[in-house]
């Protein structure tokens, strides 16, 4: 299968080198269908591709202009991701989806220089929420710091508004991604009086004996996890081994896929994770995907990922990209938009409940508006819980808001430092 995927990937990449069609909207995908993180990369890529295929087949593209999709395989490797970007940047890519925090950090200066918008949905550099300093980078609808804040707000709600004297442990992937929430949680620990202890797990996270022995010794009230790949499944297994209550174990959205819980079997029952989109296939858009994509034999990959948590995320990313393109077309009054116009569309994106319903995704996302100042959307998330018997995620909370004041305050410091270092002038005042 990998060979086939590679062949498709190569063909798609080669197609990028060919002259662009006169009329199309180019949406490149920096995927990882191979390597240690492929089980997470495949469903995202499939969801992204299937939604754009749906638009092509059902609507003839966006605003009457067909969508051209290209894939480049990164294997979740930063160097390869940069190479992929270099290969597509002259082909009018409307938006870059790097799908990796490491690649994101490398591409931020490049996309800024080249004038190509980048969307890092729920990952990447958190301070990109400050659009004034990161005009070409968007991370709506939520970022890592939002996730930490939502988790704490949820726990506050569970504990009648007080976390005084509680112990909270963060088990995190020892990488730029995993370390992101530490500062936020330290600040929140000071504010709410809980004891906070971060525990790092090195890549790939196959062995976590020391960390979970420590958790067993310290008996924290809650464990929050920022993991990825095999680390997630091992952590959930270790938590089950020490009989840590699963309902007190909260993963970030990148620790909340079927791949993370299925290997653990019954032990994962009750495990919770954050999500910034709906779960399952109980949305009208899935009927249309079945009709226009699957039944037409055009499903991405093997067609076996439809409805999984990360597939839904890929679909959501594609929906946000297409809505931004539609907004850009409206703003500029042209159907064939450029990357610069796409940026304007992303910055003026408004996702309302009515629009979500029209798209066949009622309640799938929290409504949000993007602005020049706020590239981060709403920051809201829900909690999903795993039912091992039925093998499904179900939503157990409504939308929980992040403490955006705090997140913005922390992000503003980092963004200001970045802007000063890179000589970026404020563009929101213009």
């Amino acid at each position: 299968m990998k060979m086939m995927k590679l062949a498709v990937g190569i063909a798609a990449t080669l197609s990028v080198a060919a002259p662009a069609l006169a009329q199309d909207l180019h949406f490149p995908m920096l995927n990882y269908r191979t390597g240690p993180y492929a089980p997470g990369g495949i469903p995202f890529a499939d969801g992204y591709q299937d939604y754009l295929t749906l638009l092509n087949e059902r609507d003839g593209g966006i605003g009457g202009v067909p969508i051209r999709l290209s894939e480049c395989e990164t294997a979740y490797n930063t160097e390869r991701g940069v190479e992929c970007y270099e290969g597509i940047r002259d082909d009018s890519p409307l938006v870059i989806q790097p799908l990796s925090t490491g690649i994101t950090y490398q591409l931020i200066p490049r996309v800024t220089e080249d004038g190509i918008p980048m969307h890092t949905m729920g990952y990447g550099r958190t301070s990109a929420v400050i659009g004034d300093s990161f005009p070409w980078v968007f991370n709506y609808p939520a970022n890592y710091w939002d996730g930490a804040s939502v988790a704490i707000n949820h726990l506050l709600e569970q504990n009648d508004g007080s976390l005084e004297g509680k112990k909270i442990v963060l088990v995190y992937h020892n990488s730029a991604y995993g370390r992101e929430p530490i500062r936020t949680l330290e600040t929140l620990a000071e504010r709410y009086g809980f004891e906070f202890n971060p525990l790092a797990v090195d890549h790939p996270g196959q062995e976590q004996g020391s960390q979970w022995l420590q958790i067993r010794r310290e008996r924290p009230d809650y464990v929050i996890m920022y993991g990825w790949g095999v680390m997630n499944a091992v952590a959930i297994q270790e938590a089950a081994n020490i009989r840590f209550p699963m309902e007190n174990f909260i993963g970030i959205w990148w620790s909340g896929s079927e791949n993370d819980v299925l290997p653990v079997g019954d032990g994962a029952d009750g495990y919770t994770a954050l999500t910034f989109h709906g779960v399952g296939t109980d949305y009208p858009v899935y009927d249309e995907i079945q009709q226009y994509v699957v039944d037409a034999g055009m499903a991405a990959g093997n067609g076996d990922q439809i409805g999984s948590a990360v597939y839904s995320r890929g679909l959501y990313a594609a929906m946000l990209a297409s809505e931004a393109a539609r907004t850009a077309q409206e703003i500029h009054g042209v159907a064939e938009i450029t990357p610069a116009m796409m940026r304007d569309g992303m910055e003026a994106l408004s996702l309302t409940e009515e629009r979500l319903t029209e798209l066949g995704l009622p309640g799938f996302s929290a409504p949000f508006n993007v602005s020049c100042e706020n590239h981060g959307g709403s920051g809201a998330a829900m909690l999903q819980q795993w039912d091992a018997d039925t093998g499904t995620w179900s939503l157990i909370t409504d939308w929980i808001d992040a403490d955006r004041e705090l997140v913005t305050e922390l992000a503003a410091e980092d963004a200001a430092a970045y802007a000063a270092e890179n000589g970026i002038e404020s563009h929101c005042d213009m």
Partner: protein
Amino acid sequence: MSDTVLFAFEAAINGLTVGIMYSLVALGFVLIFKASGIFNFAQGVMALFAALTLVGLQEGAIPFAHLINATFGTSIHHFGFNIPTLIAIPLTIAVMVGFAWLVERIVLKHLVNQEPIILFMATIGLAYFLEGLGDIMWGAEVKRLDVGLPQGGNIWFEENTQWLGFGNENFYGFYIDTLNLYALVIAAILVTALVIFSQYTKQGRALRAVADDHQAALSVGISLRFIWVLTWSIAGIVALVAGIMWGSKSGVQFSLSLIALKALPVLILGGFTSIPGAIVGGLLIGVGEKLFDFFMQPIIGGATENWFAYMLALAFLLFRPQGLFGEKIIERV
């Protein structure tokens, strides 16, 4: 008894059991290196491939189903029946023996008398090939491996060690993962079987003869090619055992091949040519990394396990390059 002593002891016990898991991976490297002087880069991927094959057989999955479906427009995935574990394991062993035969026929046969580095490079190629083959055959998604091995903290052990705290309220018995206890027993059976095989069977003695001196073994009529097939077959079986133990912990996925990284410091410590060395090396690395993490985590933060194992191995290299049980290489000039 004080918390520190009790918890350090608990860390050491867990280090011992985890060390055995490392040893299971290291054993495969030792077998091939001992018999042919090849450092088999593909050993970790062999563990992944063996585990993938076992799960695929258990689930009654059709090999290459995605490729068949994409080529012929069909939609077949399963045979419609599951294969019991006790039958799936021998079938997987047969696949690994077949793989060993193919490796000898297609790769090793053509590289006789080549420099060790050439053979090493060949195993790198083999690793990439096997990784892709596993994906094409069985798919890239994470798979649950269940061969009936119990997992989780051993409650009996916990309850019966509680008294060691002598009233210490923070101590509620030593934690030990039942799966790791099984690994201990399985490793003991495996090593005993390997020793009996190499000491008391004709093929085993032939294998030792080849390991001692290729030329001399050839001169008395031992078939080098047969020995290579035999060695790679045994390494394949050891890889299957390692794949089952590690796959039961984390599910079967690509990352399983990375367990080979855990075996390298074990090999450096124990020696590349010694089966007892692989066991002792694994135990030392396991205990060392757990104790180091226990004492140093509050000072320098966690996540020390990966690099500490290599640091320990490096320190050993300085004083004993051949490892604890390895053969000393003496070059006469």
